[in-house]
């Protein structure tokens, strides 16, 4: 491979990875925006977004690559079910673990979130075992540049890469339209900006918090399913690393800021792919966290944030 082919290849990798981080980061940032909680369990909901559809397709006996109409016929319901279930799980986590602590000092729900994260990870390990588990290769993998366009290149851009982008972009766009254009989306933003005044507008604040957890969980679930279909592998602790990277993405974008989280996710995607290639995969985590710390110290409001995250 020529140097530029390597660069383009890693940039494509960064784009697909980053799309997944972006989806996770948007949920992270939404929850932070509304209740100022860093929901450490969010990455684990992403993991469940892989485990749950895996169980579904196993039960249905789907284990080979889908063809023709099956692609839409199987994937659409699979995404819907996954997103509904992970959304409901995230909502339940809030009701059970965080809601009783709504008026407690902020450290209490934060520690609880770490506990919830450990709990989900360990349950997942008991459920599917400690070893990496294969996810069936559902989506057809065609080398677009060589096989379809007849371009003679070593750059590998496949239908799977395209699939990731084609699913992620509309999801992010739909979310953006939801929060900026709809009545409930506006109520959600109002709740994030000033909870007490939102209540004084007749908004049921607890219902908005539920909606936020549901939406964030559904996005994380979609990200998990995309991850499974793209890499065809999952493991009980996968939410830990993805969650930390998505959190970094959210901080870079300005925590609480949704377009910021999407951009931050893409940025971390590119950065980690380039770092894997040009530095070493072993250093990628260190690099990501160095950036997280630099932002927390020097620009805690992130790139797009309009206010420091800590209002107290």
């Amino acid at each position, binding site marked *: 491979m020529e140097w530029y082919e390597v660069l383009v290849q890693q940039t494509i990798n960064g784009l697909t990875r980053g799309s997944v981080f972006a989806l996770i980061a948007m949920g992270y940032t939404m929850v932070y925006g509304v209740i100022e909680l860093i929901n450490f369990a969010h990455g684990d909901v992403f993991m469940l977004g892989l485990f749950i559809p895996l169980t579904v397709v196993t039960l249905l006996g789907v284990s080979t690559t889908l063809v023709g109409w099956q692609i839409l016929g199987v994937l659409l319901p699979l995404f819907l079910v996954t997103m509904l279930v992970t959304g409901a799980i995230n909502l339940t986590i809030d009701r059970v673990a965080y809601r009783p602590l709504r008026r407690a000092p902020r450290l209490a729900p934060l520690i609880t979130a770490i506990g919830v994260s450990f709990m989900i990870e360990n349950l997942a390990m008991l459920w599917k075992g400690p070893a990496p588990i294969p996810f069936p290769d559902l989506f057809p993998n065609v080398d677009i540049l060589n096989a379809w366009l007849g371009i003679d290149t070593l750059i590998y851009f496949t239908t799977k890469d395209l699939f990731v982008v084609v699913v992620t972009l509309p999801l992010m766009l739909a979310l953006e339209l939801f929060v900026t254009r709809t009545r409930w989306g506006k109520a959600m*933003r109002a709740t994030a900006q000033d909870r*007490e*005044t*939102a*209540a*004084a*507008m*007749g908004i049921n604040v607890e219902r908005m918090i539920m909606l936020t957890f549901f939406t964030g969980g559904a996005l994380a679930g979609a990200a998990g399913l995309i991850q499974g279909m793209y890499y065809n592998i999952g493991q009980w602790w996968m939410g830990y690393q993805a969650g930390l990277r998505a959190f970094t993405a959210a901080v870079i974008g300005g925590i609480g800021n949704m377009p910021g989280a999407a951009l931050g996710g893409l940025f971390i995607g590119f950065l980690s792919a380039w770092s894997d290639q040009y530095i070493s995969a072993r250093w990628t985590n260190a690099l990501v966290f160095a950036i997280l710390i630099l932002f927390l110290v020097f620009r805690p409001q992130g790139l797009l944030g309009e206010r420091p995250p800590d209002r107290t």
Partner: protein
Amino acid sequence: MLELRDVHTYYGRIRALRGVSLEVKAGEVVALIGSNGAGKTTTLKTIVGILKPQRGEIQFEGKRIDGVATDRIVRMGIAQAPEGRRIFPRMTVLENLELGAFAREDALGVRADMERVFRLFPRVKERLHQKGGTLSGGEQQMLAIARALMARPQLLLLDEPSMGLSPILVEAIFETIRSIRSQGTTILLVEQNARMALRVANRGYVIQTGRIVLHDTADALLKSDLVRKSYLGEK
């Protein structure tokens, strides 16, 4: 319409209200005056359920509302322009107004009220697509009142609408309160500016350290020794 009976409200162990009783009748403008820290804001927050009273009873239109959630009280017909305006800073003026009407289902009525609000506050209309946080203090106050009116409330609570405004703007705000009154909205007006408040009010209450110490018609209060000495700066 609204009645508070012996309401006690605490912040933790701090007693902010020590037995507040007051009444607002339909069609009235009632002023609640008192100096900084007397308990005016606490009274309003207790009415809308942001704070729960420890003791006492609050009735609105014959129904008990103490202990009811804020969003439900608002849906029953009480809207407020809170202390410090509390405009949603990162939403446009239009979105702020829409949120004021959040609890309403009658789209046509909402549109009509939007027009009405624009007539009351032409400045608000000029700023329609600007972010709330970019408005001046006076514009934010107008928006806060406009937003509350968008709920088409039976009872409007105003918490220090004149705070921090220049005399000309204070004059303008009170002029608007007069026209809102003339359109038949019942108002509970909280003010430190006793003179302005009592000029638009029918009746008034004076609150000191969490207790109502005096209540009478607005004219009588303007002439009373206590009000003239303590709140109008006369000798």
